[in-house]
């Protein structure tokens, strides 16, 4: 009998991470496409860094920061009595950090492709900045944002390297599908590991195909160019 808890935990991690990533990624991308300030390239590099860094390095840095002897970990423990390591929150945080660049990159490309003249037209007609963003920019950038959402969700779902460093292996609590696969294979349970591998492959495949179908049906102007 297959234990579904890793699948449910992975979905919980993926959805929680996605909520954070969608908001942060969209806002960061919007700010970085419209604002100019000294050191912008460095900030951009830092935001994209987790994409090119080996996930286990990201995990190591999180471990050093969040551990009981790390600056953030000690602060959380002393002030709030919270231990982050070996909890699902740590897994979510790892997924957020690792998958954030995918949302950020897609959203940035989407915002860059939005015709600024349309936004200016809305402004001349008296729309405030918030209204311009919600009724002009966001709908035009939507396909790119959706692509970023799907990619970062899929990445969160499969996050292993950073997660294994900070979340540990607690069945039913932090053992997500990738961790379950690793520990099962390590112990010689190749069949069970294979089942989880199939489940997560199927999930990822469905998402990517759905995204392809959705973008083809829409045929948005910014992709035809």
């Amino acid at each position, binding site marked *: 009998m297959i234990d579904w808890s890793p699948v449910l935990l992975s979905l919980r991690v993926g959805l929680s991470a996605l909520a954070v990533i969608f908001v942060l990624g969209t806002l960061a991308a919007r700010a970085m496409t419209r604002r100019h300030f000294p050191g912008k390239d460095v900030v951009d590099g830092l935001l994209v860094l987790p994409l090119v860094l080996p996930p286990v390095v990201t995990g190591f840095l999180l471990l050093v920061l969040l*551990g*009981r002897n790390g600056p953030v970990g000690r602060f959380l423990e002393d002030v709030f009595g919270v231990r982050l*390591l*070996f909890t699902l929150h740590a897994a979510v945080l790892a997924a957020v950090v690792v998958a954030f660049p995918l949302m950020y990159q897609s959203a940035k490309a989407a915002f860059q492709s939005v015709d600024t003249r349309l936004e200016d037209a809305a402004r001349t007609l008296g729309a405030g900045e918030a209204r311009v963003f919600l009724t002009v920019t966001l709908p035009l950038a939507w396909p790119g944002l959706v692509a970023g959402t799907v990619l970062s969700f899929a990445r969160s779902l499969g996050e292993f390297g950073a997660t294994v460093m900070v979340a*540990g*292996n607690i069945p039913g609590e932090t053992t997500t599908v990738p961790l379950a696969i690793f*520990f099962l294979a*390590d*112990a*010689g349970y190749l069949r069970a590991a294979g089942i989880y591998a199939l489940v997560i492959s199927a999930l990822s495949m469905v998402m990517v195909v759905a995204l392809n179908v959705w973008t083809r049906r829409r045929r948005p102007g910014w992709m035809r160019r």
Partner: protein
Amino acid sequence: MTLTVAAAASLHEVVVELDSLYRIEHPDVAVRATFGASGALRQQIEQGAPVDVFISAADRHVDALQRAGLVDARSRRVFAGNALVLVVPSTAGANVRGFRDLGSPAVRRVAIGAAASVPAGEYAEQVLRSLGIADEVAAKAVYAQNVRQVLAYVERGEVDAGIVYRTDAQASRRVRIAAEAPPATHAPITYPLVLVARRPHPDETRAYAAFLLGPRGREVLARRGFTVP
């Protein structure tokens, strides 16, 4: 020429030290050592990893390889013995004084090796079951991939206690032994050494194994707190 030895994680320092001694006597033979949970190493050997000598922390994993005909049964010897202890971070207070304290609410997280592949975790589960606290502890267990990861979790204070071998605890200044498991509560901890079958350098492998099992091996083992057969 290169030989590869795959050894239980708890033997890390012993095997590294013996290999460097061996190199002095046999400069023509390079020994490569790989360490991990015995179950994971067995898995690698089953999948055809190029290993010449396997030293496991539990008989079970060598038994399985023997049944599959992957190791030379006649070469099997007992390399060393060990004991199981409960450790706490050296900075911790005195609220964990024995295995039974693991059931108390003051203990939030306990690190244990994943029993399927980590022998120390298997022995730990036997102890907890003999003491009748297996279920209580399972609810707060963090399962580690090998016994040294258990030790690392305790050293860093990420968990309140962990179950490791006595030799792991003795090698670390950042943990304190809270209790030793009574030998009657678990299967005897012995490290079987065996030669992997059908490997390219049988003579050199036998010579290396004989060195490990010989007086230098026993001396290093004893100095590091292992029992010697």
